[in-house]
């Protein structure tokens, strides 16, 4: 595609913009620290999150080594408890959310033809809050009790059930690090969510009606709205916890009439929608990539939008499916069974529409597409195990067993991480101007696929065989050993794949192929500007007439706006 024929802003820009900012290392660094450019902040978010992916992945490896064999002594019980708490907390708060908000930061303004986010400075502030929260959380390894003990990271699980978190049972500062770090990064998240809502609502270019917004942007709008009412309850509950711990309050103090169950409700009122906060952007990524690599418009765009909003809505009313075993009465349990299963319907609609997009297309198996296809089938399985968990009586068996761990890694890794990788392969050329190596990409994909299935397919079995989660060791006679050993091997295969990925990024940054503005022959506005885009994105404010503005330009004989 010759850019020059595209009457959309950016095409006129010929100066590769980073050239203009040569300087000393310190100036370069300073530039990144003070930046308010949504693209740079997006890159910062993604880099930050990838770093923590390695850290939390390393923690996962330690967990897996410890569990590889019965009665193993690789780490102490105390350290094990810290490892899974930090692994879960990091993966959710410092990997999942920042990376997806990072993509949103980079992509949303470009996709809607805006020059930046609605509030660039708030954007920078939010990022630094998140970053500070992350560092504070990890400082607990060093700080904690003070420097006397070898440091105390939180050790109560990512859902931190009270009253284990109260002063009486968690002395020291581990819980304080957990609560304060997450309150701070929560403010950052809130700021970004507000920013994304304002951006999508108020910054769209001319002609970009809501029903013409690319699906990724749509999903980010839904996610951000969902975040507003999701992250705040967690903040509220954590404030209560801190009131208990420092001011002698009794919210969760069961000795003084407080309730442990109330914490569970508050946490899962946050925790359940939270997993959709992670899932929906991943859906958005799939909704961008699958059409482009099938060479077809997305099937059923209005249904996709409606289903996304529906998922966001219904997900607010299902939280107690994490609490089927706390002794709720029959009708309440039945209600949450029904509401939980209902989420399967809009999710099914999405899966079917993606599949229908494939049908009749000409599928191009580039790396982004491979990861998306992996996501598609894995998410199907993960969703179905979710439905099994939603059958409350069966959940009384499966709850807090490795079956649940298998379910959620199937969604979080098999669904979300796969799509995160897809997104990086897809948008890396836009952000850097260089292609990632396809050969290394395929190695990465196939190894990660293999490792993923070794680990997480296997994991369902010990769950059914009665293996609870959060245990640092188990007896040999239970018959869980073999499965755990296979899982550990799988984790290491995943680690090799991740190392290849890191290598791919480094090597491609140095000598990757030039990407050009539109390497995938795609249809949304971000591909109309050079790679990397100039700091003002568009020279002229673009005007769009359909959901696929670049398709209209590339196919003037058959533009989309005729059909909409």
């Amino acid at each position: 595609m010759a850019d020059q024929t595209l009457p959309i802003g950016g095409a006129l820009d010929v100066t590769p913009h980073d050239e203009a900012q040569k300087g000393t290392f310190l100036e370069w660094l300073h530039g990144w620290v003070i930046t308010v450019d949504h693209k740079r902040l997006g890159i910062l978010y993604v880099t930050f999150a990838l770093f923590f992916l390695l850290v939390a992945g390393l923690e996962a490896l330690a967990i897996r080594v410890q569990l590889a064999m019965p009665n193993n002594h690789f780490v102490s019980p105390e350290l094990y408890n810290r490892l899974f708490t930090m692994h879960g907390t990091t993966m959710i708060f410092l990997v999942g959310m920042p990376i997806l908000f990072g993509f949103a930061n980079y992509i949303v303004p470009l996709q809607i033809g805006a020059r930046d986010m609605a509030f660039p400075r708030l954007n920078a502030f939010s990022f630094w809050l998140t970053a500070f929260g992350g560092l504070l959380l990890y400082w607990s390894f060093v700080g904690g009790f003070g420097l006397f003990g070898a440091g105390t990271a939180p050790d109560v699980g990512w859902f931190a059930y009270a009253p284990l978190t109260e002063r009486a049972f968690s002395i020291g500062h581990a819980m304080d690090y957990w609560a304060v770090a997450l309150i701070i990064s929560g403010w950052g998240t809130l700021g970004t969510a507000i920013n994304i809502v304002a951006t999508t609502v108020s910054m769209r270019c001319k002609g970009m009606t809501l029903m013409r917004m690319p699906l990724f942007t749509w999903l980010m709008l839904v996610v951000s709205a969902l975040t507003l009412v999701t992250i705040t309850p967690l903040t509220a509950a954590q404030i209560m916890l801190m009131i208990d711990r420092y001011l002698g309050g009794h919210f969760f103090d069961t000795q003084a009439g407080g309730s442990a169950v109330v914490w569970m409700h508050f946490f899962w009122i946050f925790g359940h929608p939270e997993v959709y906060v992670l899932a929906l952007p991943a859906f958005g990524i799939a909704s961008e990539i699958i059409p482009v690599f099938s060479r077809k418009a997305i099937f059923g765009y209005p249904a996709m939008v409606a289903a996304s909003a529906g998922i966001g809505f219904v997900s607010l009313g299902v939280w107690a499916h994490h609490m089927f075993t706390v002794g709720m009465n029959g009708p309440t349990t039945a209600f949450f069974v029904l509401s939980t299963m209902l989420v399967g319907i809009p999710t099914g609609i999405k899966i079917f529409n993606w599949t229908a997009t494939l049908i009749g297309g000409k599928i191009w198996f580039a790396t982004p597409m491979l990861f998306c296809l992996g996501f598609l089938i894995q998410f199907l399985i993960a969703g179905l195990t979710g439905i099994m968990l939603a059958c409350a009586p069966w959940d009384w068996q499966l709850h807090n067993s490795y079956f649940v761990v298998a379910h959620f890694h199937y969604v979080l890794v098999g669904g979300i991480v796969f799509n995160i990788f897809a997104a990086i392969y897809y948008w890396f050329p836009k952000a850097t101007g260089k292609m990632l190596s396809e050969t290394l990409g395929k190695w990465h994909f196939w190894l990660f696929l293999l490792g993923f299935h070794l680990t997480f397919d296997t994991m369902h079995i010990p769950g059914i065989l009665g293996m609870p989660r959060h245990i640092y060791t188990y007896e040999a006679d239970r018959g869980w050993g073999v499965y755990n050993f296979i899982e550990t091997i799988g984790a290491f295969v995943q680690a090799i794949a991740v190392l290849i990925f890191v290598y791919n990024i480094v090597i491609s940054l140095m000598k990757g192929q030039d990407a050009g503005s539109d390497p995938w022959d795609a249809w949304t506005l971000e591909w109309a500007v050079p790679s990397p885009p100039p700091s003002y994105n568009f020279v002229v404010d673009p005007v769009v007439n359909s959901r696929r503005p670049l398709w209209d330009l590339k196919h003037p004989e058959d533009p989309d706006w005729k059909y909409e």
Partner: protein
Amino acid sequence: QTITTNTDSFSPASKPAHEIFGLAIFALAITGGIFVVVAAAMFYAVIRYRRRKDDDGSEPPQIFGSVQIEIAWTVIPIIIVVVLFLTSARLIFAIKDAPRPKSALNITVVGHQFWWEIRYPGLGIITANEIHVPVSTKADPQPTYIKLLSADVVHSFWVPQLAGKTDAIPNHVNETWIEPTHTGIYKGQCSQFCGAEHAKMLLRVYVDTPAQFEAWVKQQQQPAVEDPAVAAGREVFMHNACMNCHEIRGTEATGRFGPDLTHVASRDTLASGSVMNNPANLRQWIENPDYFKPGVLMPAMHLSSQQLDQVTAYLDTLH
């Protein structure tokens, strides 16, 4: 008695676990069916519509959607959801509202950081970590109702072959029931993270024949054995902090923080299933509880080697 070496929720030996297994198979069949259909469609699409070598570079026909199809794949899942929901709901009520026969045995289980206190209020028995219940037969149905409490944090009571799990929550009373149909020893364990030694908060249920159960009850109702031969050990126990945390009925030891030791020697395991109960392990346990269970709430008492031998010998007589 056969010790089941596994904790397989798919080989149930008691009433609610049986029904749950049935639901599991039903749900697996339905979701399996969905999987086969949808996955087949995906594989078909990916293989059939891959870009061929001889592709001419033209774009395929653009199809934007179809309302009829959208309706179809909304309605069919709705029907499936309704079916799954009704089946689950039926079982929820069947288990939660099961009629409670007069003959039922009532016990109370209290979760502690990291062990289980077990009380038989009607029988005046207090023990720990190993629950004895009678088997239930058609002729003589004998369900056991278990009241669940917690002394500190949230625990969860789970013996997969007998029933699903139920949490033991402080300041909140829960109840569950089992009706085992086969004798044997069934293992379970705490399944809600409760602190450092959550992993070793194991649990055993002994399903006895009525005769065995009666004998066990008789024996547990006795006060502690007084054997003059181990008076030295008894002295050690009573003159150390042991007595502040442990109860031995019939003696001045009335502590409630740790397990009741009145009949400790009649139990097969120590420290909530961490190790088998034999004199060597018992001695090692008292010398340094952290050896078997790092992070346990019983401190090492720094007894001399001789005192250790004596107290071990004493506890070993408490059948």
